[in-house]
């Protein structure tokens, strides 16, 4: 598998994502600077990492979504490349229009960092096929703006199309329909607030993030 992790000014989970992908899949991961106007060739996976791109100033993910590299990510996503946005990455994907909806301030108005239980709502996606029969997973979460919002008709569309991939067992932030992660309608772009990149081996308290990366490998091996 060939993967890239984007680096924006203020990204702070870029290395975490690289290590997580490399540890779980053995893939080679390239770091791609936000000013790049092209992506490495033949990528199988693009990870948009968490952190505070541009300090989260103005609106989380807004400035990063306008960077040169994101124009390339949009093209790659439209061409079917897998794109995974975690936390700030999810916010960036929404801001760039690759995913519907937006992430609002947490309903408690505070940053919340805690381990969180998720149900896997759609185990047929290319990001979840390796979860087998596992019903719920644990990952940690840390954000101030993880409260997913979409207009009622958009939300209905997401639900009806099976685009909800992860749901919170206990809603930590007011997210609509307890949504923790969604895919686009084509199924190749996943955005999620919890961090699989902080839950990929037992020493970190949970290895439940690892099957997410294994799933992507599986898709490739099948192809």
């Amino acid at each position, binding site marked *: 598998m060939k993967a890239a992790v984007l680096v924006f000014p203020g990204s702070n989970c870029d290395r975490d994502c690289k290590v997580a992908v490399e540890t779980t899949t053995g893939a080679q991961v390239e770091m791609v600077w936000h000013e790049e106007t092209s992506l490495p060739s033949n990528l199988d996976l693009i990870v948009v990492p968490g952190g505070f791109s541009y300090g989260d100033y*103005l609106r989380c993910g807004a400035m990063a979504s306008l960077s040169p590299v994101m124009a390339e990510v949009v093209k790659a996503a439209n061409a079917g490349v897998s794109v995974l946005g975690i936390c700030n990455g999810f916010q960036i994907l*929404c*801001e760039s229009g690759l995913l519907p909806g*937006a992430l609002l301030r947490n309903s408690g108005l505070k940053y919340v960092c805690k381990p969180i239980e998720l149900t896997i709502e759609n185990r047929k996606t290319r990001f979840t096929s390796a979860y087998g029969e596992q019903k719920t997973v644990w990952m940690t979460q840390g954000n101030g703006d993880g409260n997913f919002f979409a207009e009622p008709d958009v939300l209905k569309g997401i639900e009806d199309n099976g685009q909800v991939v992860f749901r919170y067992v206990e809603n930590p932030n007011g997210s609509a329909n307890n949504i923790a992660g969604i895919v686009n309608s084509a199924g190749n772009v996943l955005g999620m607030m919890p961090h699989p990149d902080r839950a990929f081996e037992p020493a970190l308290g949970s290895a439940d993030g690892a099957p997410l990366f294994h799933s992507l490998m599986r898709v490739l091996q099948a192809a």
Partner: protein
Amino acid sequence: MKATVHIFLKAGVLDVQGKAVEGALNGLGPVQGWGGVSNVRVGKVLEFDLTATDKAAAEAEVKAMCDKLLANTVIESYRIEVA
């Protein structure tokens, strides 16, 4: 020219900050001696200077800035003043 942009959450989006401020103001009211408040909305305001010198052109520029960056029209609406 000088631009002022007001950005608020759209009507259908719950303004949690506004609700919290409303709760706090009403909670303090009896102690501090002010009356009740309602419909609190919290938004952002940006002020900046533009190089554009023509009002219509400036407005068009600021509108583009809002659509592109300053506001997220999925959740926010904005109001522009140029002077």
